[in-house]
């Protein structure tokens, strides 16, 4: 929860004049409750989308069942490439989750105003993305039912996992991340669930909401401890998000494989994760703001600010790509040089150029303010970013394994329909949870949005009134919200 409670008299004025007031079209607290609670009514479009997501998920589940029956050979692994789509997609989904924590925790600590309307969506995205990512190491196991061997607990086998192995670090990092992200999401939801509880007429639903809200009453005592706890959770989540993708990068960087054994990997992975997550936030938030008619909550100013973050992380990622080449060139290591040459001009050039164009070139369009404020372009760009970031992981995993030190270690990799089926299933699984979430619980933090709306006053502050009513035209009059 933001603690910038009192409306500031010296409101910042970014390059958009009407941005002086955070949500100019929102007049009071009741409007927030009415409009956001109104998004919970299921629609035909929602049922259709949920149906498609469940179908995709079932395709994935069926394919996995087939793989369990047939063995991992069904998945297109062939020596020397014994990591493929599953590890690529694992890293992809973990990365998607990171932007959620960035927006909900890191931008909270920095008091970035534009996070207010998009952080709930992003946080839910984090939880569901990590839930999806967590499936892939299990899918990658020959005997998936023995996944619990990785967890250190007293057992009859008297065998313990090796704590020096990056795979064990992964278990700790991903489980901690999932637990803390879910807790962070739930804690932020409690006051909003209390709002829904107090508005609910159906006794069964009211009882469920009352249980989930834990009897929250919005008292000063509750808020006092809540705001502190939220702050500390954000402070924990911030280094956690950096550590998790660093640990994921160690899965590669700890190996002596060309292209992997690089100290640049942790920051490179973290920047890539945040970049890909922002891409997915756009993919989700832009259609939702349109479908829910919430353009005055996720305003063009918010999209503009998020686009700048996207542009910045794209440039960091681009710099990391170029640094990798520079390091290989200057290392004098023949294997590294050959590997990177093979990556961009050889066997895997097609994948590398998809990555470079989607992640480095297309985001440069965001230098244009006009495009940063064009939701249609942002949505299209986000699809390219999602594609580019999946291929980034492909380019990391496959070319290295297919081109190691000796010619006998050189080979190729071709995913089978099982890989594609499970990849499709992962998207179905993710969107199924997400679609269920947005119709059961508010997709925007109602109580936090209220924090930045001036409260009703008997004797209003004349300075604030001036800023609200006189200084800037109402955005609906100027077409500020856009039409896309």
């Amino acid at each position: 929860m933001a603690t910038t409670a009192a409306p500031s008299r010296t409101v910042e004025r970014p390059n958009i004049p009407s941005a002086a007031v955070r949500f100019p079209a929102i007049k009071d607290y009741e409007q927030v409750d009415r409009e956001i609670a109104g998004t919970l009514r299921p629609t035909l479009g929602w049922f259709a989308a949920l149906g498609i997501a469940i179908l995709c998920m079932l395709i994935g589940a069926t394919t996995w069942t087939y793989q369990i029956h047939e063995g991992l050979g069904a998945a297109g692994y062939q020596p020397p490439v014994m990591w493929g789509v599953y590890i690529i997609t694992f890293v992809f989904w973990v990365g998607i989750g990171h932007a959620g924590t960035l927006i909900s925790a890191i931008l909270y600590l920095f008091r970035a105003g534009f996070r207010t309307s998009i952080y709930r969506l992003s946080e839910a995205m984090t939880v569901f993305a990590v839930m999806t990512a967590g499936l892939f190491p299990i899918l990658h196991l020959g005997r998936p039912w023995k996944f619990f061997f990785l967890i250190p607990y007293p057992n009859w086998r008297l065998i313990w996992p090796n704590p020096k192995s990056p795979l064990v670090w992964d278990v700790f990092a991903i489980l901690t991340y999932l637990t803390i992200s879910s807790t962070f999401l739930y804690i932020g939801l409690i006051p909003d669930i209390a709002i829904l509880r107090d508005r609910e007429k159906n006794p069964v639903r009211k009882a469920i909401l009352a249980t989930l809200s834990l009897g929250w009453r919005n008292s000063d005592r509750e808020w006092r401890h809540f705001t502190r706890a939220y702050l500390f959770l954000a402070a924990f989540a911030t280094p956690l998000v950096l550590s998790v993708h660093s640990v994921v990068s160690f899965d590669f960087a700890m190996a002596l494989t060309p292209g992997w054994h690089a100290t640049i990997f942790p920051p490179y992975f973290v920047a890539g994760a945040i970049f890909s997550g922002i891409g997915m936030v756009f993919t989700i938030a832009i259609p939702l703001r349109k479908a829910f008619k919430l353009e005055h909550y996720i305003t063009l100013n918010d999209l503009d600010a998020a686009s700048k973050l996207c542009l910045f992380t794209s440039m960091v990622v681009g710099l990391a790509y170029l640094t990798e080449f520079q390091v290989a060139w200057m290392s004098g290591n023949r294997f590294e040089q050959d590997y990177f040459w093979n990556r961009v001009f050889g066997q895997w050039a097609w994948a590398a150029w998809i990555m470079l164009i989607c992640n480095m070139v297309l985001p440069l369009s965001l230098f244009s303010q006009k495009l940063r404020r064009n939701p249609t372009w942002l949505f299209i760009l986000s699809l390219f970013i999602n594609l580019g970031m999946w291929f980034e992981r492909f380019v990391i995993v496959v070319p290295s394994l297919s081109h190691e030190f000796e010619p006998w270690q050189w080979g190729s990799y071709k995913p089978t329909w099982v890989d594609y089926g499970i990849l499709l299933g992962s998207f179905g699984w993710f969107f199924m949870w997400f679609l269920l979430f947005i119709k059961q619980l508010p997709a925007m933090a109602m109580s936090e949005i209220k924090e930045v709306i001036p409260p009703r006053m008997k004797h209003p502050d004349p300075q604030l009134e001036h800023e609200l009513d006189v200084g800037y035209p109402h955005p609906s009059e100027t077409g500020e919200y856009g039409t896309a």
Partner: protein
Amino acid sequence: MQGVLGAFHEIDSALHAIEELKKERFGDITVFTPTPRHEFEHAMSHAPSKVRIYTLIFGLAGVTFGYWIPVWISDYWPLVVGGKPVASWVPYTILGFEVMVLIGGLATVFAMFALSRVPRLTMTVGYDPRFSGGHFGVWVVTDPNRADSAMDILKKNGAEEVRRER
């Protein structure tokens, strides 16, 4: 618990009522607000939350436990490789950090619940559903002798509705 509940639509009215109630030495006052507001924090002037103490203690316990797990495992099942230390603290820092965040984070949440006294099983006294919407509430615990005086203060300061509860 007996008391008086006032519902306000304007924040400044509620603040004035709290100030006057405190001036009249009504000690046990609770404010309900749809969103945390610094104005109420200042008016109520409570001590800072103690959540941070639990965060610190359990965070430290977590990091200790997080280091202890791999050290114990290494000792129990030693992998002797090239004269390297059996228990090496550098990679174990990852586990120490993750367990610190896990235990510290969860302890923070449980401390918040305990200090806020949630889960709460009943909300029938001293609460109104409007307080999660657009209204501010002031609940004053008082004996019947002083209830009229508290009601007068709430009404005088612009409460939309004032009622006694028990």
